[in-house]
């Protein structure tokens, strides 16, 4: 198992290096295949590690492999150590599995882009970083992986780097991620101060002892870790980067901003569960933020009109579910939802990519209509993903979402609020998902759809930026000239089909009353949790019924508003205009952050430059020094004025001084 564990990391790294260094000599789509093969190999190794892990006894399923010591001094034990346990292998399987499919999709989707090789190098680097994150065995490597995925995200969001919107989005994502990184590192310090080891297992084993009297420090440290989790998982208020991150190519959105990177926060909380269970405050904060996010994002999803951004807000909302779940102790449920969400969200993004390609790059829901007949395969995938997202049985999303809510309710007391709000969120989910589907695929076909029905893929007159409409070209740094739809690209179809099957059948691993394979598998990781007991049988059944009702209500409402009675949407919008404005402006979070953070920092920067740098540093310190030297040299220059009598005077003065000295000496 040790070899497989290290190979999981080394294959993507090798893929990056080969693609980055050798892309000039590799022909055609070879970089794409190499990238895909690297991740597929990593997936195979994950499966091997999984099998090897299951071979071991239940008590021995948390294994640490150390490659070397980075530093072992002043009590800091920095090692390159991997922790192979069910949770990390589960995450590795999800990450590598979904990544392989997305790489396969990208082989066809980005084919005409001049930055093809760069894309695959970056994507492999991302997968490598994510695997470092999930396989990390100590805080050091976790932080390294965390930072690397942030960097990979930045590189990929601003992949089309000549687009100003993309580069600004990349910077925004990176800055917010760095805020999270700072929280993560500081949280680690707080925890390390009392645990005196960076190792995960070491920290967890002695957690109750170390923090018995330092609960304040523990809570502070965990809150800082939560800052990191919220930044990475795009929870309120550090969420503003995720919708902007849709500036990246669609496979990037699928992989990073749906399936894997944004789930890092969920993984973090689950990994740190022994610490979270000691501090109720931190757990409660996590749950509250998760719940708030799922509702806020749900409402925004009802109002925005850019296709990818609707799906982005949907991601935010679903991750809110997961965060709420793992904060409340529903670790297995949370990860179950992580897995199913990865499947159907990646599927939705891939299908969205196909629709956008059919629209020749246009992403606005206002312009796309009636693609049902033109893109049948894409439509089918969208519907499957939508049903899974809306938690319709027997699709996978139904089981996972239900399980989270059931586990939360089983904690009793105030947690029932979260339970109810969770179902409100489920209603919103169904509503905005089917809004998206009905608007894009039903109704009178748009001109592009009509063109496609006749067999001719629409091409825009000039390539343009979908967000601002400005004209671009198709050279390096901008998207390529061709657009690829699923119906015409076998690689895309294969990837999407696999994901569709998984979205349909993925729930089978944890069907209530029937199977609990996932729970059984993840048990060794969460054996020390005090929240093992799930909901009672009655509650489970009630939950399932409520979920079905809510989903049906959502879908039918959406049908009514957008298909059966056109014009309802406009009327509702007019009646609830202020509310609509709030939602369309994304609850004004961007403006708030601009006011509270960006402007003070900009002011500080201006102050620093104009006052501090110009006056004090340049004027006083640097200028002062140079002026002193200038004055000195001016004085020295004045001595050399060619004025004979002055020279003689200085001579005589010197003589007088010397004579005086000798006179004094002789007394």
């Amino acid at each position, binding site marked *: 198992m040790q070899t497989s564990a290290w190979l999981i990391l080394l294959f993507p790294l090798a893929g990056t290096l080969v693609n980055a260094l050798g892309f000039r000599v590799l022909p055609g789509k070879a970089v794409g295949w190499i990238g895909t093969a690297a991740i597929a190999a990593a997936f195979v190794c994950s499966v091997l590690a999984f099998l090897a892990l299951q071979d071991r006894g239940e008590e021995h399923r948390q294994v640490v492999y150390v490659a070397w010591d980075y530093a072992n001094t002043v009590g800091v034990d920095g090692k390159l150590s991997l922790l192979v346990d069910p949770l990390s292998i589960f995450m590795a399987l999800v990450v590598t599995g979904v990544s392989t499919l997305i790489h396969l999709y990208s082989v066809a989707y980005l084919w005409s882009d001049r930055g093809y090789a760069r894309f695959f190098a970056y994507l492999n680097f991302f997968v490598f970083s994510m695997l470092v994150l999930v396989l990390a065995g100590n805080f050091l490597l976790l932080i390294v992986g965390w930072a690397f995925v942030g960097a990979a995200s930045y590189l990929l969001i601003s992949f089309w780097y000549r687009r100003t919107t993309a580069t600004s989005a990349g910077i925004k994502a990176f800055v917010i991620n760095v805020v999270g990184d700072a929280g993560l590192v500081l949280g680690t310090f707080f925890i390390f101060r009392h645990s005196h080891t960076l190792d995960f297992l070491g920290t967890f084993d002695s957690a109750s002892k170390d923090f018995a009297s330092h609960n304040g420090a523990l809570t502070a440290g965990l809150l800082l870790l939560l800052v990191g989790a919220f930044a990475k998982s795009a929870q309120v208020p550090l969420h503003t980067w995720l919708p902007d991150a849709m500036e990246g190519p669609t496979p990037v959105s699928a992989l990073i901003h749906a399936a894997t990177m944004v789930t890092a926060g969920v993984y973090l909380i689950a990994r740190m569960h022994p610490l979270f269970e000691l501090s109720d405050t931190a757990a409660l904060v996590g749950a509250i933020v998760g719940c708030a996010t799922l509702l806020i994002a749900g409402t925004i999803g009802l109002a925005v009109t850019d296709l990818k951004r609707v799906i982005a807000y949907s991601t935010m909302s679903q991750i809110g579910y997961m965060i709420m779940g793992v904060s409340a102790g529903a670790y297995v449920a949370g990860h179950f939802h992580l897995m199913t969400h990865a499947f159907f969200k990646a599927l939705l993004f891939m299908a969205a990519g196909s629709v956008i390609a059919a629209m020749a790059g246009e992403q606005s829901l206002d312009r796309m209509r009636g693609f049902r007949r033109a893109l049948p395969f894409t439509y089918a995938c969208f519907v499957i993903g939508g049903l899974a997202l809306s938690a319709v049985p027997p699709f996978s999303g139904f089981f996972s979402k239900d399980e989270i809510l059931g586990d939360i309710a089983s904690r009793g007391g105030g947690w029932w609020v979260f339970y109810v709000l969770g179902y409100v969120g489920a209603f919103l989910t169904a509503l905005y998902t089917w809004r998206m589907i009905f608007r894009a695929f039903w109704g009178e076909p748009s001109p592009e759809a009509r063109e496609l029905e006749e067999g001719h893929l629409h091409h825009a007159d000039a390539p343009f930026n979908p967000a601002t409409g400005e004209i671009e070209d198709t050279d390096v740094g901008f998207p390529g000239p061709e657009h690829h739809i699923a119906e015409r690209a076998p690689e895309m179809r294969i990837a999407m089909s696999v994901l569709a099957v998984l979205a349909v059948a993925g729930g089978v691993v944890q069907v209530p009353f029937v199977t609990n394979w996932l729970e059984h598998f993840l048990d060794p990781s969460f054996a020390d949790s005090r929240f093992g007991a799930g909901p009672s049988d009655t509650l489970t059944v009630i939950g399932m019924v409520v979920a079905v009702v809510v989903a049906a209500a959502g879908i039918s409402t959406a049908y009514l508003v957008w298909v059966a009675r056109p014009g309802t949407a406009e009327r509702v919008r007019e009646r609830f205009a202020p509310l609509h404005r709030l939602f369309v402006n994304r609850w004004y979070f961007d403006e708030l952050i601009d006011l509270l953070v960006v402007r003070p920092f900009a002011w500080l920067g201006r102050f620093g430059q104009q006052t501090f740098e110009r006056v004090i540093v340049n004027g006083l310190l640097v200028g002062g020094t140079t002026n002193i030297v200038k004055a000195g040299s001016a004085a020295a*220059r004045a001595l050399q*004025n060619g004025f004979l009598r002055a020279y003689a005077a200085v001579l*005589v003065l010197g003589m007088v001084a010397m004579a005086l000295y000798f006179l004094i000496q002789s007394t």
Partner: protein
Amino acid sequence: MAEVFFFIAAIGAVCGAVGVVMVRNPFYAVLALVFHLLSLAALFLLLQAQFVAAAQVVVYAGAVMVLYVFVVAYVGAAEPTRLRAPVGRGQRAAAVLFGLALFVELAIAVLGSSLKAVPSDGPTVGAGFGSPAQIGELLLTKFLLPFEIASFLLLIAAAGAVVLARRRGGIGTEEADRVAAMDFRLPPGLGTMAEAVGGRSSREPFELGAGGGGE
């Protein structure tokens, strides 16, 4: 008796010195110096340095001063016009101060000296002291090398003076040598030392074509 002579000679020397410094006309300054030199010769005689006194009168007052007179006659005694603003306004005051300081220090050194022989008349010396015979003997025995080197120095000085003051190319080329002093004043902005030190040029900015040179 010797005191009276001493005072006369001393006062003469000092007056001659002051005269050199204060008289405007260089001719008269030279004459003052001659007077001073003759007083010095008297002082030397009082100090029993007959040969040196004679040499002083013949060589110094006789030859060197005559040379001076010739050059002053050649150069002229006119006070040249000031082309630039006076510099070193505090120069005169500083000069007097320094001179005074120097005198005071030297006086203190002399009068406060612990050399016992200074406030005395000196040891009794024989009749041949300071005579040409004694000087000559010293020059040719003990101080032969300085003597020879001094004669070399004279040769070099004579040759140097000829080189410095010669005409180049004959008599008629004086016109070509005639270079106006103003021509040596470079246009402003070309970085002469005088400008850098703050000497103001009294001419208008030099027009180098379309508007004077840039910044």
